[in-house]
């Protein structure tokens, strides 16, 4: 039951970010459309909006596990994007190097006096970057989850999103640094 504002809100933010960074390429790391939107069909208005954002840019849709196959929407549709030396894909693969992926949408929790604060975060080590979700109301996976702990090196950092990006040692991997 995602409210319809979700899509609009995400697109509005994307438009602002594109204008600010003047990005020449946009690579979407998969699961760009969730089931519910796919089911009711993306609205005419949103479709036009995306097309407008794509104008004058290189735009790649990487296929995700939730995406219902290629949508009838502009841009290049690929299962993975090798851009040596970097490899873009939806789900991180153990053993690869210089990889940028989405899918897991890691979140990190920090304990404070006023209780825990949880933020979407980037997970970064010398092999890979796992990106947080861009969507407005997307859930996420705790970076203490074994799947993420096993993927990342002991010295990995979690970079918390917010007004100011704030790095911390990746929770869950923290202790092993002194092992």
């Amino acid at each position, binding site marked *: 039951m995602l409210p319809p504002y979700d899509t609009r809100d995400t697109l509005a933010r994307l438009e602002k970010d594109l204008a600010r960074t003047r990005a020449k390429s946009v690579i979407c790391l998969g699961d760009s459309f969730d089931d519910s939107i796919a089911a009711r069909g993306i609205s005419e208005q949103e479709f036009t909006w995306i097309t407008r954002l794509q104008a004058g840019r290189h735009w790649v849709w990487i296929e995700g596990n939730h995406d219902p196959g290629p949508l009838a929407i502009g841009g290049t549709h690929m299962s993975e994007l090798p851009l040596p030396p970097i490899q873009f894909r939806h789900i991180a693969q153990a053993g690869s190097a210089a990889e940028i992926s989405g899918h897991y949408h890691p979140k990190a929790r920090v304990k404070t006096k006023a209780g825990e604060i949880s933020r979407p975060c980037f997970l970064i080590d010398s092999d890979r970057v796992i990106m947080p979700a861009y969507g407005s109301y997307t859930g996420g996976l705790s970076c203490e989850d074994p799947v993420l702990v096993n993927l990342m090196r002991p010295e990995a950092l979690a970079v918390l999103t*917010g007004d100011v990006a704030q790095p911390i040692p990746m929770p869950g991997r923290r202790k092993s640094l002194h092992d």
Partner: protein
Amino acid sequence: MTALSPELPKQISNWFTDQGWSLHPHQRDMLARSGAPAQLLIAPTGAGKTMAGFLPTLAELADGGHNGLHTLYISPLKALAADIKRNLETPVAGMGLPIRIEDRTGDTPNSRKRRQRADPPHILLTTPESLALLMSYEDAPRIFQGLQRVVVDEIHALAESKRGDQLMLALSRLSALCPDLRRVGLSATVDDPAAIARYLAPTGCAVLHADAGPAPDITMLHTDEAPPWSGSGAAYAIPAVLEHVKQHKTTLIFHNTRAQAEVFFHNLWLANDDALPIGIHHGSLDRAQREKVEAAMVAGQLRAVVCTGSLDLGIDWGNVDLVIQIGAPKNVKRLVQRIGRANHRYNAPSKAILVPANRFEVIECLAALEAVQDGDLDGDPRPTGPRDVLCQHILLCACSGPFEADALYAEVTQAGPYADLTRADFDACLTFCATGGYALRAYDKWQRLQQRPDGQWQLRDPRSAALIRQNVGTIQDTDTLKVKMRGRHGAPLGEIEEGFAASLTPGDTFLIGGQIVRYEALREMVVQVSRDKGRRPKVATFMGTKFATSTQLSQRILHLLNQPDWPALPAHTADWLHLQRQMSELPRPSTLLIESFPHDGLAHTCIYGFAGRNAQQTLGLLATRRMEEMGLAPLGFVATDQATLIWGLEELRDPAPLFDLTTLEDGLEGWLSSNALMKRTFRSVATIAGLIQRNIQGQRKSGRQATFSSDILYDTLHRYDPDHLLLQITREEALSGLIDFARLRDLVARVQGRISHRHLDRITPLAAPLLLEVGKVRIDGEGRERLLREETAKLMQDAGLAEI
């Protein structure tokens, strides 16, 4: 036996004699005064109010000489109209009177409705909405020809809502059609009978008081175990409540919210080892389910019913001999009306037990108990009739035919709630109906009225009448989704709020109709669930509105707190107050007590405003906004009916800036404009005023669709036409309703800067329970950013990464 009334025809008095019945004094008085143009009867529940209202009609119709409609009976509930019809038909048949009685509500088949228009019965039982609809037909003058009396039942309940305002406007039309029409109002006990009389007939209305009967036998539940410090479940009282249920024939167990009723019923059922037949009844349950409980109740098959306000109104429930109120009653008038539900035998005292759900409610229950004994009822003066209802009335008038603005204005001011309406306000409503208002004048769909060359107003497109009629009424149900058991023929269970449904993920369990169900899926706007074997629901249940403690009751509590000692309170509660007096002080009526203390490493401030939950919540929002500006880094707050507790990183040294009225009002403006509550209020105002329609040609828009278009309209008007009539109405309503800024303003005026600010080194006894309250509001501001920066820096430092 005394002689019956001289006014009564033979058939009727014979019937009474045969039954061995006599008339109550007020029933005889109502007969004697049946010629009065307006008459209000105030009588407690069970005093034969309805018979008192109908006897003159039966007497006048006994000779069979009247043709067409004679008496119109209006009730706030469809079910009540049907109930009264049954209760009237038996004596009318027994008396052998030539009287045709029919009801007309949203449930009446269309064929019968059409026949009723062509050939009206003598007595028509209906609701305000059905009456408004009937008045909007071109043939209304013919339908109501010869009408003599209109009886408004439960007028005290109608007078508290827009439904009553709409009804009074309809009555002003009726009086114009039938100049001899006599009005009768039937009311439960109220704080200000004169106000209800003015509401019914502003030009003069006599008031008749029935004997109030013996004082109720009302007590507070005493249990060995003290109530908990916070919460509203009253689970501690379950064994004691069950014991009382066993000792009585039928017990009504009232709750303030549906959620509390569900949770209590669930717990009661788990402890019900004797398997006593106990049912649950509230407005969110499926109608079939509710009717089953009502039928079982009338048949005397139930020992107890756990219920909410849905049982507040006058249907006769048989042998109720005990009323239990769970949780502080919040409002003395409602408590008295609820207590009246016990013991329908007139002249026998009603028996009621108050069950405080937490320690503070012990005090509130005692204050309410004393108020009932003193007959000190609470009530807020009714504001002038709302203008959105007037807009709908104007549109409905246009449906029935062309009208003159002067004549309609004169007619409208004959309605009690609109007696003080200015011509300018009326004209603004008329303009809105005609054009949609300045910002919307370019849109064809809102150009609905036009002025003819002769100056009369009429519908621009006669076909729009159908749409206007489909959207008649002022009841705004919150947007709910139906809940059904999974499977092709899954049983309907009831409804939950759309917002609550949105928060569920498959596998979540919740309570509805006393059973635990598991959320499976949402299909075609129906929530599908399956049975769950667990004993504890994961999600308590839907929210429901919470009443705020009334101003009068809050004042009584403050005075009670200022007694030197509290012999009437149980020791556990009195000791707690003594400890507070020792450590700090108790709140006083004319001084605002504020306590500041450190707790758990954070600065805490507790503001004892006693302004009611809604106003205390608004105070929390506005005060933390101001504190954020002052650099105090607030992190969150929680509000109850008595106090607001705020916590943050910096201590509050000077509270005065928080209570500057100008600053508060500025903060309110900024906060309001982006507030979801304003948008919700706007949606209801715009629907009533006819700007947006919920029903279009039989298709009901889902709440979300309606929200979406109303939100766009709100934003548009807010930007381009901030003084638009509907925005004015929205602002007025939001401020007096859930935001309740009026009470906050009263608080500031009451204390006039007299603030007692105590700095303490630890949490105080009175503030401590607030820490346990649910519904904490989190502030995402500088405070949280600062804490996060400190913690992340420390983590990097500890990991030896800070210098890299």
